[in-house]
């Protein structure tokens, strides 16, 4: 879910008519089993959840940090900041161009 949001999932609309172009599971891209990088699970006990018997969600809360992690990874690898999800090749390329031309925003600016 987090990776999809960060890298692939996006509804594309025709700019002239507003008609969605990728309302299907081929063109609306959700990562598959083959796209999942090696996962290293580390159990962490932090606090007791607010639900019955101390239950708390562990799925969706994780997704929120994936985007930032991937964005920072791109920055770390290339020096380019991509500021809209998903981080598709065309956006990364444009950001790289901007870095090359010296227009990129530096860290913290």
């Amino acid at each position, binding site marked *: 879910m987090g990776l999809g949001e960060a*890298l*692939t999932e996006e509804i*594309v*609309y*025709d*700019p*002239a008519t507003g*008609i969605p*172009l*990728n*309302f*299907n*599971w*081929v*063109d609306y*891209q959700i*990562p*598959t*089993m*083959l*796209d999942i990088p090696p996962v290293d699970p580390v159990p962490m006990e932090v606090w007791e959840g607010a639900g019955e018997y101390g239950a708390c969600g562990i799925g969706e809360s994780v997704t929120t940090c994936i985007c930032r992690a991937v964005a920072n990874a791109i920055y770390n690898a290339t020096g380019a900041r991509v500021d809209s999800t998903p981080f*598709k*090749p*065309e956006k990364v*390329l*444009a950001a790289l161009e901007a870095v090359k031309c010296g227009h990129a925003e530096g860290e913290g600016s």
Partner: protein
Amino acid sequence: MMKPVDYIRGNSLKAAEKTLVEFEGRARPLAGGTDLLGGLKDAIHPAPPEALVDLKRIEGLSGVEERADGVYIGAMTRLRDLARDPVLKERFKALAQAAEAVASPQIRNMGTLAGNLCQEPRCWYYRNPHNTFHCARKGGDRCNALTGDNRFHSVFGSMRVGRTPCTAACPVQTDIAAYLELLRDNRVDEAASVILEVNPIPAVTGRVCPHFCEQQCNRGGYDEPVSVRGIERFLGDHILAHPDRFLFLPAQESGKSVAVVGSGPSGLAAAWFLRRSGHRVVVFDRMEKAGGMLRYAIPSFRLPKEVVDRVVEFLEAVGVTFVLGVEIGRDAPPSKLLEEHDTVYTAGGAWATPSIGLEGEAHTMTGLAFLASVQKGQAAAPGKRVLVIGGGNVAVDAAVTAGRLGAEEVVMACLESRGEMPALDWEVRHALEEGIGLMTSLGPLRVLTSGGRVTGVELVACTSVFDAEGRFAPCFDTRRTKIVSCDAVILAVGQRPDSTLNEPGTETEGPGVDPVTQATRVQGIFAGGDAVSGPATVVEAIAAGHRAARGMNAFLGTVEPEGSRSPNLMNRFARSALAPSARREPEPRPPEARTRNEEDLKGLDNDQVAAEASRCFNCGCVAVCPSDLAPVLTALEARIVTSRRTLPVEAFFAVSPLSSTVLEDGELVTGVFIPVQKDLKTSYVKFRIRNAIDFPIAGAAVALQMEGDTVRTARIVLGAAAPVPLRARRAERVLEGKTPGEAEAVEAAEAALKGAVPLGSNAYKVNVLQALVKRAIMKALASQQTPKKEGRP
């Protein structure tokens, strides 16, 4: 809900083919079914297929078979089996790699080799449910992706799907997009020659044609149509300024002689095409000068007579003879001409203006007679207060001419409402600017006279002009009448062919003339132009002249010279065409500066022409060929074997409505043959967003035939880069004869992408493809060579 569809099991290749042919395109073959069913569920086609003919049970269509001279792969071989096949893995690694890269494991279990090759475009406009975008590739007119979201589309231009809408709308089918592309390359002479193939007088049509092409221009639905008019005039004038570059002598004189009666646009066009075919051509005209309506009906301020003079000189220079002041029909019947000539074309125009039965009609003059007498030198206005009756171009021309001759007041009255008037809108606007009055929805009742002089016209309200079927059937409300005072009345209505010139059998109206060949019922006599069609446009007259020339050539047994121009594989356009821009139009003089003889409109200058040429979309399809196997098979010089023929893979892929191949109705791919090549190194690499299901955003296939460490021949093919797999010949030449390393691979990759024309949102694909070509070359070089000896142990 998916529309019900019949399932028919094909028991043999012959039976399947027969069924498909019987359905006349309304049935589709079903191979793996992984792609087709999705399309059916989404109802992406304009007309859903009625039946599916299943090919799975047909025997002998799958399997990889090693032969002495190569490998034969059955059409229904599954992708999974291709990916695992030991023969392919050893001999043609790239093919196994490509098969492994298709879609997902489940789809590879079902999907077939031929299904992968024949799949329909993946363009999301094409695939939108319920045929939302009836695009060019589905028989519509435009490509929505060109100015839409095209991140996955072609980076090498578009490919034509049938004719462009402009060409289809043009009565002479001018290949407008082709000459605009030549103009963008600054190949002006060649651009002009494209027009001359179908129209010998672009200097005329560039001024007076209504340009049906512009009305259909896809740019019209985007910002404004390309100013074909302005560019055509520019090229027409270019031809007349440099006639020597366009004069030709027929390759061979035919020894035949042809007479053309009438030197208007239809006669001139027929004369040009007949002369080009090698005939002696004599053009007769009853008037003193050649040109017909071009000279005597169209005012000089629209079409300067020097242009007509030069057009006639141009035709004389190629050997057409003009005999003027001879009235065929009065002086001699057309059939008399057959004694001296092998065939005759009559195109006498529609000069007759029969009485419309108006009271006091004798006191009026006709629009054509007025315009002709002005051309012959009349310099006085027909009256002080002139009423012109009619709403067509002749009426507007007569009114404007009367005004410019000094009439104090000129008013037009027509049956039609402003929007229904047959005259061109901008011509009416220009007339109104000059102070011409316009009264619409009024018909003439009678001409009022006093002492033999016109004092006015009584008009009656016209409630409707056309009946429900669109036929001319005016209705009047006689209670509502109106008197307009005037001292001259010009009737510009009801032009007809002059039937007194006809002889039995050559009646030009009705079914007497063959619409394809323009042949009349008298053998050897052909007829066309306004005389046959009734008053129409110059370009329609040219079209009739061309049809007649073809018909007469067929009659004479003459083979027409063939055009040498071969169509481009890819249509290029300026990137600036993909953003909105303003149209440049020929500029009119200000109303107060317009005169009788000087042309109203200024032509476009060089810069304006270049800018307009750059606005052309060069309409075609920009969906890419999404097959992973196609580029590999192209690199391997495979041959596609169908139920009817064997053809090289490069001739197999095509862009046509609802199809990505050249397969005919019912024709089925039965297999693919890959010739064995010694010392071959191959590879395929693919770029996609995720590792399963995705189609290639880009792909590159490489096949290097080695001699030791040296590349003897290279084949590099780009996938998903253009509507068909595209060979990168420049890149191939970089590698050939060398012992390439990384530097050469980079150089080849750069060469491969030279000349790319990315669209609005797919420029990144150029970088991606460049990287892929380099990687594919390196991967091929690093791979193990195919065994040296032929055949397997």
